[in-house]
């Protein structure tokens, strides 16, 4: 007996087959004449500088951490949503408490400044007259050395 998941599996297999054909069929007809110049990394026509795996801003990592927490909470919410209509007042209270906790977590992240993308203002105590603080420059990525 072919179950519904069997059909999903068959669909996925067919999709994989189509993808493989799409990617590999062209191998038969396309040219392959690599030269050293062709195989260099694109960097606006200049010779590539240093390692391609540059350092990137720690904020991306923080975003991933916050995502992890809230995504687990989405998963927790789904079973509640499915039985909510049968559970009456109690169900509402349980859900409300859960959502309030979630909102508090959110407020905490917000207050801590983890959701700010542009750099938080750093005002050093001793300010010599030099250039303006660089918070406007959108330096999300530290291009390394």
């Amino acid at each position, binding site marked *: *007996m*072919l179950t*519904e*998941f069997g*059909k*999903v599996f*068959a*669909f*996925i297999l*067919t*999709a*994989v087959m*189509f*993808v493989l054909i*799409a*990617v590999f*069929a*062209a*191998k038969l*007809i*396309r*040219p*392959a*004449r*690599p030269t050293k110049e*062709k*195989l*260099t*990394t*694109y*960097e*606006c026509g200049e010779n*590539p500088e240093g390692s*391609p*795996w*540059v350092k*990137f801003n720690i904020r*991306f990592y923080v*975003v991933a951490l*916050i*995502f992890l927490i*809230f995504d687990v909470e*989405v998963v927790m*919410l789904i079973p509640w*949503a*499915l*039985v*909510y*209509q049968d559970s009456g*007042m109690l169900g509402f209270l349980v859900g*409300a408490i859960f*959502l309030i906790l979630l*909102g508090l977590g*959110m407020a905490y992240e917000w207050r801590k400044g983890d*959701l*700010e*993308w*542009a750099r938080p203002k750093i005002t050093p105590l001793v300010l010599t007259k030099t250039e303006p603080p660089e918070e406007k420059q*959108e330096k*999300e990525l530290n291009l390394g050395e």
Partner: protein
Amino acid sequence: MGIGEIILISLVKILLIISLLFLTVSYLTYFERKISAWVQNRIGPNRVGWKGLLQPFADVFKLMLKEDIVPEKADRIIHLLAPMIALFVAFSTFAVIPFGPEVHLFGYDIPLVVADVNMGVLFVLALTSLSVYGLTLAGWSSGSKYSLLGGIRSSAQMISYEISMGFSIGGVLLLSESLRPIAIVESQSGWMWNAIVQPIGFITFLVSAFAETNRLPFDLPEAEPELVGGFHTEYSSMKFAAFFLSEYANMIIASGLIVTLYLGGWQIPYIDLLGLPSGLVALLQVGAFIFKLVAILFFFLWVRWSLPRFRYDQLMNLGWKVMFPLSLINIIWVALLIMIFGL
């Protein structure tokens, strides 16, 4: 119905849907170019075939004949795997989206969905999260700075909007009490479309869908002025085509989801009161599904050619500080509606 017949019907449906999806994707690229031309007061493709209708095939053949260049610094295996993941994910999701009611054809009852899975929504959520890997791995494996930055940006963007997408779906599940897409469609009978009952959830889902498919105004991963091609800078030939196709396939999936979850799926309000023959009703309903799908797709294209791109901090602020609280409010709103009116 014997096993052989079930397998035969399923196979026919699978092949039909996948080939239709490929065809729709290729013609979507054509319509994108035609609509962009129309918006910008140009003519658009008009040389290949009648009114340029053969343009998609010309594009595919051109890409097939291009040399496939893998840069020296790239990780060859992952470089090959990434576009395949992206395309495979984009095409597999359609397995659970229902495009019509159950029909009687040649003496069989055929539900017009490939697989009537009782956790279809979870399946969709799982697969759309997988699509992040395609872009991230592509960015990482290319061995190029632009690709890396584009890949990291896209992963951060997609996971940020996935949260509000998940919470918006929570509001839908409250009303349908089921993860089956068909049950979700049936819970929106008459004018009880989720887009009307929970407009906030509809908007957050719509915006998240734009962000998840990396369409303008959220196409930061491939912002041309700053990042060249973003994650696909170092891709050429059919691997590039795979990314290109997956973007359009993702648009179709997103539109299909929006129609299923918020616009009543294949349903036409109160059509059963007219007393039409059931075959005609089924046909009209499939037509309604396609019409809604095309309308949303047109909206995708329209927005792309009308709005400018966000700045990255604006994008993250919108995702976390606007869409996320709004989707929370939406859940509470729906829960209150059910408490008060017992919907």
